[in-house]
């Protein structure tokens, strides 16, 4: 690739393989779980197309350098801008949806999701870049067998994908706290869970009956005292409540309360679907927001896995 003539077959294969690897890395990190985000199929398609572009940019960087076309590498800056736009678009899109959800995600959670989506595009770029670099390197040391070049590229690309996945894997509420069902007690217009005051807004008989009969409560108790800094965070509690209400729905009432004495966080809601195990599971798997991670144990992430 000298920037003037037709692209060589070798470079074309390098670009195709690296682009596929980069796009595949994004596909593997796009998962639809109970959170149902991104939506399917359009959200999926958008992120795969963006990943394809990111992977393409990473793939052509090596042939560009090889042909001494160093200015062409500046389009990596374009990629960065593209990824920032991904973050911005995600943030705006999620903010627009805030008023339509049972409870709002909150800005801290939205910021975390948007950052994750931006970071996943770097996955595509770095995986395709490392695949392309490996193919070129193997070719450069005199291995002319195309199959060996491609296999080596795929292997390094895969290792890069695994390392990045492990590095960026966040922790969840279940990693730092014990989650147990709580006992709801309605005394007049006051609501208590395990003897801890939660609210006094149950002034009507309907509200008292509904919460007493259909309410579900969880008590989140941090494993270590310093995890309270994370769990008591307003954004983190909003995220937990959001995940619970989005998955189980909410008929009317929902509360979160922190108990300063015991360090417990209480969640109460009247869900549409009464499934205690599911509720515990959802709260356990709620991600710890990057913006509220304060303790060294929570911040730590390992490339080699736990």
């Amino acid at each position: 690739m000298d920037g003037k003539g037709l692209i060589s077959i070798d470079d074309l294969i390098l670009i195709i393989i690296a682009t596929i690897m980069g796009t595949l890395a994004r596909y593997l990190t796009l998962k639809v779980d109970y959170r149902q985000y991104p939506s399917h199929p359009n959200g999926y398609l958008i992120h795969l197309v963006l990943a394809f572009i990111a992977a393409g940019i990473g793939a052509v960087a090596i042939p560009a350098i090889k042909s001494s076309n160093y200015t062409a590498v500046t389009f990596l800056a374009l990629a960065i801008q593209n990824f920032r736009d991904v973050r911005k678009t995600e943030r705006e899109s999620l903010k627009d949806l805030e008023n339509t959800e049972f409870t709002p995600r909150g800005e801290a959670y939205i910021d975390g999701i948007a950052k994750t989506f931006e970071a996943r595009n770097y996955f595509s770029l770095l995986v395709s870049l490392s695949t392309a670099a490996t193919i070129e390197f193997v070719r450069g040391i005199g291995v002319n067998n195309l199959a060996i070049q491609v296999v080596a590229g795929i292997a390094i690309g895969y290792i890069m994908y695994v390392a990045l996945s492990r590095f960026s894997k966040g922790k969840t509420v279940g990693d730092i706290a014990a989650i147990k069902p709580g006992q709801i007690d309605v005394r007049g217009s006051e609501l208590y869970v395990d003897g801890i005051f939660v609210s006094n807004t149950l002034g009507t008989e309907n509200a008292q009956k509904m919460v007493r009969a259909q309410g579900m409560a969880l008590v989140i108790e941090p494993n270590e005292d310093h995890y309270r800094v994370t769990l008591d965070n307003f954004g983190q509690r909003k995220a937990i409540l959001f995940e619970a209400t989005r998955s189980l729905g909410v008929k009317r009432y929902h509360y979160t309360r922190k108990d300063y004495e015991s360090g417990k966080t209480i969640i109460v809601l009247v869900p549409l679907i009464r499934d205690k195990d599911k509720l515990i599971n959802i709260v356990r798997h709620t991600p710890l927001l990057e913006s509220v991670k304060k303790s060294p144990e929570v911040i730590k992430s390992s490339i080699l896995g736990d």
Partner: protein
Amino acid sequence: MDTKKSPSIIAAITLPHHNVPHSGLAFMIEANNEEEQYTLMQDVAKALKADVVKLSNGIFILIS
């Protein structure tokens, strides 16, 4: 802007013996007796989808 929302009192249902000199922006309704007070509280709470707090002196306040 995602800030902690402080609840605001949107209405209060009182009885004749309650003396509330300044209601601020809250809508005040004075009921004749406790039965009427409870019914009015439910009517307004349903219409405004508000949460209800019963104060220890018998006044119902509706908050959102």
